[in-house]
């Protein structure tokens, strides 16, 4: 097989199933994420988006099915292994280390690929070798000047930006964003959309992004392809303009209150 061709799937799920005590939260999902694209996962609450996300990133083990990232099978691997193979994720609920500064966060993320984390006999000053690159990443997400504030004291939008910097620090093949604009006001949403567009286009390539997102204006401005999930299955898949008016999607979102039981 030749190297990655633009448009060919870099991340592919086949027949993915996750059962919780007989309830199928994800029920036979196929997903192809094209190299260099932004792929949005949407659907009403309980559609299985977060479960699917956790299956892709190793935080949940699938009951059945496979996930491939390039040549690697991911299903059944631990989250840390998945992360090292090049699938980086952000968290829906901002998920940081309260006592560490943004600079320390990114240093830690950068050090993950080296064995430095094991050196209990060395001074933590050894982590400063990553501080140059860490500062670059913080600047990229607009956090320059906030490198030394404890993360717990950052404003909400900045915490989300730090989430992004952490995921980018892993130099991922695919970036998975779990509701990157959740809980944000309109201004922050716009800024985050621009930020995601900007950071995708760095380092001479276009980063592949999979995002769970509720905000349709974010989906419309970012996503190349949209997969609509409902009750653990793929309802529709296609470009945003196509799926937007699909009657099945409209029903899924508005509920079937108009339909007769």
């Amino acid at each position, binding site marked *: 097989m030749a190297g990655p061709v633009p448009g060919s799937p870099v991340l592919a799920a086949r027949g993915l199933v996750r059962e919780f005590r007989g309830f199928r939260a994800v029920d036979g999902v196929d997903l192809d994420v094209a190299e260099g694209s932004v792929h949005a996962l949407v659907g009403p609450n309980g559609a299985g988006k977060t479960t699917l996300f956790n299956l892709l990133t190793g*935080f949940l083990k699938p009951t059945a099915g496979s996930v491939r990232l390039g040549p690697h099978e991911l299903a059944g691997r631990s989250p*840390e292994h998945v992360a090292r193979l090049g699938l980086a994720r952000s968290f829906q609920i901002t998920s940081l*280390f309260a006592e560490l500064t943004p600079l320390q966060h990114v240093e830690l993320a950068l050090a993950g690929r080296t064995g430095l984390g*094991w050196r209990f006999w060395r001074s933590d000053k050894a982590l400063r070798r990553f501080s140059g690159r860490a500062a670059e990443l913080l600047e990229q997400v607009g956090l320059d000047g906030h490198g030394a504030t404890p993360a717990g004291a950052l404003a909400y939008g900045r915490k989300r930006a730090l989430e992004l910097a952490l995921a980018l620090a892993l130099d991922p093949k695919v970036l998975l964003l779990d509701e990157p604009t959740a809980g944000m006001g309109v201004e922050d949403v716009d800024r985050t959309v621009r930020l995601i567009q900007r950071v995708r286009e760095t380092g001479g390539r276009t980063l592949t992004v999979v995002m769970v997102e509720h905000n349709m204006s974010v989906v419309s401005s970012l996503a190349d392809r949209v997969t609509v999930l409902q009750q653990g299955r793929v309802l529709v898949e296609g470009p945003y303009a196509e799926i937007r008016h699909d009657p099945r999607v409209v029903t899924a979102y508005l509920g079937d209150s108009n339909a007769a039981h």
Partner: protein
Amino acid sequence: MILSRLAGRPVLLVIGLVAALLLPWFVYPPVALDIACWALFAAAVDLLLGFTGLLSFGHAAFWGSAAYATGLIAVHSGLPFPVAVLGGAAFSAVLAVPIGYLSIRLRGIYFAMVTLAFAQMVYFVANQWRDVTGGENGLQGIPRDFFGVDLSDPFFFYYAGLPFILAGLFVAWRIVRSPFGRVLVSIRDNSARARALGYSIDRYKLLVFVLSAALSGLGGGLFAIGHGFASLDGVYWTTSGQAVMMVVLGGIGTLWGGAIGAALIVELNDRLATAGFQETGIITGAIFIVVVLVFRRGVWGTARTLLER
């Protein structure tokens, strides 16, 4: 301003060292050694509790079995006491591998209970294996050979043992302030996030568990040499509880707080026992409750917050 400058490391380090060096001049020398050993034990427990977020309620297994191992080496080999003490610490580290492997996957109270269960198993073995441990009589007559130097005076032995304690405390400090320590704090604060950054948190937890056990064993082994015997008390669950209590008294996640907790509890127990008071647990327990209610961050944690203001 002045206070915040005083909070700078070198000053406190000097104060701590001077206190450690002068301790046997102010407290009964055997008690001074006990304080030093417990201080290291408490720091080792704090590595898990304060810096990794794991409450071990079974560290008596490492403190107490290192005491036996140290004693057995000293009794049967006639090697100098430092070799015996280091051998005891190594024994604890080895013992911590299976115990840690089987318990670090659990969290919170389940981790505490499983470590307690393992410690009780160690206690059971020590109690039953009379030929080796002396059972209820303990392992008696542990020598403190050191190339013919007479260390029988507890005052001098304190200074012979202190370097091991200081080295152990230095190792604990180094661990906390290392890249490894940074990973531990990230696991404590948000383990899912640490995994998403590619860190195999179970392996990190296992390593810190083994290191903590080795340092506990260093303290326990020296304690056994200092007393000349190793007893079932060392592997009993109250020993685990006392170490945790010292950490909480001094301040969780402060490392040095444990030393203050150790000094308070050991000295108080000794004073009460000398005065003929039997139920020391009532007094230390009451102090513990007051400190936990009034100074949430422990003695050292509270003092540090005030100094940094």
